[in-house]
């Protein structure tokens, strides 16, 4: 990856070149921002693997009209300001489109900056609702928005006749989106929210909150947090002895293989919303899973890797359809796009206040015997859910 970054640096003196100045022969350079370093590096690693598999696949199939593609990957170091600098470097490098990544707090800033610069950006993982709602003509998102994370969990709660739910969520953009959406679904499904506690990043002692929740004895607990907090939360939940029928994680930290590894027995039977599982029945899912695993050196891929892969495939398809690396033409091509990837069908639509949003449902999985197994919806051949009580 280092090498790619150097290449970008080498291009920086060419600042004055407009977008269309990408030569019409040679490789096509597509921009991508992810967290190679910093606190989101774990997710970044997954995405880099996805990018690698995606680029290899496009190039193996002959590239775009015979021209190979290459990603200019910029590291945002898990930091908003560095993310904006990364976006600026890609704008100046004249890329036709930028694949935009993970943490909503960062991506929102990057996406808005790119939209102001009239650079189409394709968001692959970040799910804060407010990124595509209201959104912009230049912002496209192929992954599910935060609302869907809450929907799949609450569908399970509803199907199992849960009456009361407690929420613990961080104050970041993504966590807030999921928790707010959860409030809406609770109203819709007639489920009482007995507790809705938000915490600031850096809090490490959840015991008082968990005690509070324990006293209310809800049927379900929805936790929305990043990697490190999810492990601390589950450890302390076991320690405090709070026992709902189900612990549910709103993706992010809970969907990572490391969650199982680090939380050990504390993580058993936690359910989590996830964007993609290898059990989905789209063409190429199995092959993608194998390729990602190889790219990760044998580690199990998370959905972030599949999304990054899909980002490359969709970006390449849009440039092919546009027949040009002109940003406006690429934007128009994205608008008209309708395709199926191993991540799922991709089509950018305007609905429910969302703009250029791919309407895609989520799946749910549960930690059973130290591994994730799919439990929802019917299309993934679900295993029976194990309840805490």
């Amino acid at each position: 990856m280092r090498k790619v970054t150097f290449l970008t640096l080498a291009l920086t003196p060419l600042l004055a070149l407009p977008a269309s100045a990408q030569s019409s022969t040679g490789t096509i350079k597509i921009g991508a921002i992810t967290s190679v370093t910093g606190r989101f590096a774990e997710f970044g690693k997954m995405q880099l693997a996805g990018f690698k598999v995606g680029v290899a696949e496009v190039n193996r199939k002959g590239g775009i009209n015979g021209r190979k593609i290459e990603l200019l990957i910029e590291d945002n170091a898990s930091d908003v300001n560095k993310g904006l600098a990364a976006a600026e470097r890609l704008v100046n490098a004249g890329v036709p489109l930028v694949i935009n990544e993970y943490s909503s707090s960062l991506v929102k800033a990057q996406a808005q900056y790119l939209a102001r610069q009239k650079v189409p950006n394709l968001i692959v993982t970040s799910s804060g609702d407010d990124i595509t709602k209201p959104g912009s003509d230049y912002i496209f998102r192929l992954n599910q928005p935060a609302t869907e994370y809450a929907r799949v969990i609450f569908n399970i709660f509803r199907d199992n006749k849960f009456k009361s739910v407690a929420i613990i969520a961080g104050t970041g953009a993504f966590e807030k989106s999921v928790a707010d959406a959860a409030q809406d679904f609770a109203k819709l499904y007639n489920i009482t929210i007995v507790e809705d506690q938000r915490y600031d990043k850096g809090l490490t002692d959840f015991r008082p909150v968990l005690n509070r929740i324990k006293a209310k004895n809800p049927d379900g607990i929805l936790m929305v947090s990043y990697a490190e907090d999810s492990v601390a939360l589950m450890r302390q939940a076991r320690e405090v002895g709070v026992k709902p029928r189900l612990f549910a994680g709103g993706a992010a930290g809970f969907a990572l293989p490391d969650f199982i590894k680090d939380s050990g027995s504390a993580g058993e039977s936690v359910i989590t919303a996830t964007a993609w599982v290898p059990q989905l029945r789209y063409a190429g899912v199995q092959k993608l899973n194998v390729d990602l695993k190889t790219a990760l050196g044998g580690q199990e891929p998370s959905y972030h890797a599949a999304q990054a892969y899909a980002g490359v495939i969709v970006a390449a398809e849009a440039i092919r359809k546009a027949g040009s690396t002109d940003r406006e033409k690429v934007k128009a091509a994205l608008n008209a796009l309708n395709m199926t990837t191993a991540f799922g069908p991709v089509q950018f639509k305007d609905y429910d206040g969302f703009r250029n949003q791919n309407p895609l449902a989520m799946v749910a999985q549960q930690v059973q015997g130290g591994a994730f197994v799919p439990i929802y919806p019917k299309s993934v051949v679900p295993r029976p859910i194990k309840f805490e009580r």
Partner: protein
Amino acid sequence: MDSASVTAFFQTLVQGLLTGGLYALIGTGLSLIFGVMKVINFAHGDFLAIGMFITLALFKAFNIDPYLSLLVVAPAGFALGFLIQRFVLARLGDRLGEGSMLATLGLGLIVSNTLLLTFGAQPQSINVPYATTTFQFAGVQISIPLLVAGLGTLVAIVGLNLLLYRTELGRAIRATAQNPLGAELQGVKTTQIQAIVFGLGVAFAAIAGVLLMPLLYTFPTVGENYTTKAFIVTVLGGLGNLPGAVAGGLVLGVIESLGAFYISNNYRDAYGLIAFLLVLLLRPEGLFGKTVKRV
């Protein structure tokens, strides 16, 4: 109050006290250093982070139990503190206050960035089988690692008191704290004593780091948070007042826990800071400051 809410109250109280015990351990190190040298150690939290990362590294590389790594971390912390005082802070001469403050601030930056370069920025934790084990006592669930942390604090603080009040070295430390020049004239090697005290302070922070490791995750800048907490603790108890630091730690732990339980978790850090401001406004010498004796 029905019995469930009574249990919940005691549960929260006990957890607050145990967490507070850790705050006390961190605060004691800071207060000890301030008491003897009038230096506010802004790198205190970063020394705690060093303790956490040594524990992490030993666990990942050799699968050494976090509590066993105390045998390595405590002496290493002491040596580090000793050397820093001897070769960095002592060289600043008599420019007390801003000089030493900036020096410790700088040291903290060096420590956190070294950790960043060595271990990376991603949060890391260790998974030990007893991480979530608890036992019940009168309906209250008590976490074993948290209890060990509380007991560890107790041992460390009792040990420190024995050292200060039962040994010749302790006498020399107290003399240096009361009047460095007078102590020097009586033949106490104050430079040596100051280095020992800084070593002890750093060792305390590092021990707290070890005790936290089975409970929490760590990342290179984890220290900032604890420097603030240590500062609140010492101000609550009175700067340089060791029993005050212990009490301040317990008070902070309980305030945070009860506040998060009864009011809302959303303002958790605010409770400690509000207490901090109130103490500064109403009793600047600290809840357990020296004027208590005069009254």
